[in-house]
């Protein structure tokens, strides 16, 4: 194997963090909040073990054979995501989620925006955030190529 075989390689790293949240929109009535958000509207919040999968695309460096150094990706995820979100109350402690309902969809989008400028070797391809084993949200660039 050498550099003659071209094409993108997709690398995925997974992290887990635990956080609490609640869904409540003060612009809506209490009754609407309860109807739309159900038990997620509990005023004291509740928590999840989140699993985040981050996929980076790129051509492996001809010398190192890496798309990016996993150690570096690990450091970025630790600094940008774990420190911000792990064991936090997402509504109150994560600046980037202020003014948003901290749903899986919105957290995935925030994660994308935090990571995308920090990944300078290769390119962020996709983030997938699991709130539980059966619910997840993905975020990627509109019109992204098939993996």
């Amino acid at each position, binding site marked *: 194997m050498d550099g003659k075989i071209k094409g993108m390689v997709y690398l995925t790293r997974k992290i887990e963090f635990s956080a609490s949240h609640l*869904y409540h*929109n*003060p*612009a*809506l009535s209490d009754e609407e909040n309860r109807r*739309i*958000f*159900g038990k997620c509207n509990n005023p004291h919040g509740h928590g999840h073990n989140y699993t985040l999968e981050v*996929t980076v695309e790129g051509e492996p460096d001809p010398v190192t054979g890496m798309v990016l150094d996993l150690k570096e990706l690990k450091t970025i995820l630790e600094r940008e995501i774990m420190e911000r979100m792990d064991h936090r109350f997402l509504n109150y402690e994560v600046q980037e989620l202020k*003014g*948003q*309902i*901290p*749903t*899986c*969809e*919105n957290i*995935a*989008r925030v994660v*994308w925006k935090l990571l995308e400028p920090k990944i300078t070797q290769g390119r962020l*391809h*996709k983030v*997938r955030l699991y709130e539980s*084993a*059966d*619910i*997840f*949200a*993905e*975020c*990627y*660039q*509109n*019109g*992204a*190529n*098939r*993996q």
Partner: protein
Amino acid sequence: MLPKRGEPPVNDGLKVVLGRRYRFAASHRLHTEKLSEEENFRVFGKCNNPYGHGHNYVVEIHVSGPVDLATGMIVNLAELDQFVEREVLEPLDHKSLNEDVQAFRTTVPTTENLCKEIYRRLKEFPLAKVERVRIEETCNNAFEYAGSRNCGP
């Protein structure tokens, strides 16, 4: 400040997809009248056993659409669950795919075809766009279908 419902969504060039996994159990037999008995057995092997066999299927539904600023949601999961329950789980769970599902009276109920059938049943979902159906037939086999498009990231 959080808005009331009906505000225009954010357009930042990002696509957000919601995925939800469901489970059902059903039996099937892989057999086609287009082939002889011997050919059926050669092609389908033990999946051609005349009495059929079953699986615990896991169905993953991917939907996309604008995220409502007032709710943070593409679609309320309760409404997606209700639609999937009615269109997919209730008609398929604890059924014989060959005998109880009209589409498989004439088509082999492989999990490839099951993906397409479930996609067909869900594509009229009025509240979000069904992007993809992924089915795990066992923990070692998975199939995906995204309509006429490629599957995407």
